[in-house]
């Protein structure tokens, strides 16, 4: 089975964000970067599907700065076979421009599955995966939390408000992966050593002019200092009085 997994290098979720000097981006000094947590589910799913099919080729693809190669090594250490980096720094805020560059790279690649994380925890866009699917004319299910594949057909479940949607599709297909789909493995020492020798092809991303541009990035307004109403259950009546009379939310 031939599978492409598209991943993104993002700041660790425990990072405290500082605004860069340009006023439109994050100050990356001292920031720890990680493999986007949702992409871990995509990588794990690709590896399990390849191995279940008795072999194949799992390509990890990323669009981003040269440093994204470190993140790609994590995916290679988990077990992906090779990498392709589409160089772009910074990554455009226009997700369609990103999707077009990725679709151009994947087109004609003969992939049975193209997997993404359901979103990146930096820009929260939830969009590049389904855009790539549309650009390639492929079936797409987003936010997949459960997946069954059998004989070129698949059934996926995705969480919606008030339930789970059950979606049928035929392969080749694009899926974006949600938490719950699987439990991502930790790279073993052997995998980490092997990853150093796996090839990463590096080439510039073919990006058109972005049509969404960032005008400003700012920290959110601080919440005003709250107060401790009291201790223990005896504080409950006072809390409720404040919620009704001061905050007016009840």
């Amino acid at each position: 089975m031939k599978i492409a997994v598209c991943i993104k290098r993002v700041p660790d979720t425990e990072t405290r964000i500082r605004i860069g000097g340009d006023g439109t981006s994050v100050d990356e000094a001292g920031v720890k970067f990680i493999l986007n947590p949702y992409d871990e589910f995509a990588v794990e799913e690709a590896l399990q599907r390849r191995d279940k099919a008795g072999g194949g080729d799992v390509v990890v693809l990323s669009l981003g700065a040269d440093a994204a190669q470190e993140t790609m090594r994590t995916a290679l250490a988990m077990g992906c076979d090779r990498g392709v980096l589409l160089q772009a720094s910074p990554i455009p805020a226009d997700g369609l421009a990103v999707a077009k560059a990725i679709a151009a790279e994947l087109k004609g690649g003969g992939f049975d599955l193209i997997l993404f994380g359901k979103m990146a925890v930096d820009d929260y866009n939830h969009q590049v995966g389904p855009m790539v699917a549309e650009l390639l004319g492929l079936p797409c299910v987003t936010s997949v939390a459960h997946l069954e594949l059998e004989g070129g057909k698949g059934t996926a479940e995705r969480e919606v408000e008030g339930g789970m949607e059950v979606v049928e599709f035929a392969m080749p297909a694009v899926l974006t992966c949600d938490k719950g789909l699987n439990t991502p493995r930790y790279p073993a020492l052997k995998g980490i050593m092997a990853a150093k020798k796996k090839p990463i092809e590096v080439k510039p991303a073919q990006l058109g002019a972005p049509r969404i541009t960032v005008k400003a990035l700012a920290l959110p307004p601080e919440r005003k200092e709250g107060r401790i109403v009291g201790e223990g259950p005896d504080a409950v009546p006072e809390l409720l009085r404040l919620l009704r009379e001061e905050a007016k939310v009840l």
Partner: protein
Amino acid sequence: MANVLAVCEQKEGQVRKVSRETVAAARGLADALGGSVDAIVLGAPGVDPAGANLGAAGADRVLVAADPSFALYAPDDSAATIAAQAKVGDYAAVVLAATATGRDLGPRLAARLDVPLATDVTGLAVEGGKVVATRPVYAGKAIQTVVVEARPALVSVRPNTFTAGTGAQGHGGTVVSVQAVTGAARVVVKEVKAAEQGALDVAEASIVVSGGRGMKGPEHFHLIEELAKAFGTAAVGASRAVVDAGWRPHGEQVGQTGKTVSPQLYVAVGISGAIQHLAGMRTAKVIVAINKDKDAPIFKVADYGIVGDAFEIVPRLAEEIRKIRAG
């Protein structure tokens, strides 16, 4: 043309409440652009937009595309139908909700219309004829302002952010029938397995009660559920720690690797307040924290806090709220 198209969602033939917010956001843009608002509803024959009163929310016209294939969400045919209407209507902007459906549909629509998509928007303005959107990034640790240089400007708006009825009223919401474009489905939604009766999604609920590791085990989450039930219309949320531990389903997770929420009231019980959790709920209007550790970071963002044992405080709180609601 300076008109705006609002994409509505329906469930079992009734327009969803969140769509009134979508229409309200579209109304604000249309007022700034000097245009009118079309709200489009896709559903099975018999779909009834009247109940949602989209006219009062700001729609001038309600476009209904009725087809049996729209009974459940039809990703490809919905995108095709809305893209066709967007081309015919020559809209300056198209607005969706950043819901499970809107997040799936928006990118498909963007690719078909060859325009970019600004997602999860919490503020909209028009500057020099262009749509300018503000949106939380890094789960709310920063706020990004973007300029959309395309027509139509395609945006999805975060639930619980835009309030219906604050803009100009629409002109009654005249209902107009439009053509459904179907037959090219690449994926088919076979069914929706319903969650527990009346379960609300944390991202859409106006009150969220969340539990963390301080609940000590999954067997104690009935206290959180009972408190949510006492409020009437509240959703149950959870911290990453308890979801990772398998105590609660991941759909309830609030934070940077879960859902970002903006409810009227957020009650955090036994949650210490990791950075990634605080990022996901800091835009709540009012935050209440209940925690035994008076130095927990959650108290830094909470408007009101009670220090103490959640197992004593939560049942008392539920009881008092039930009394208030019983009048």
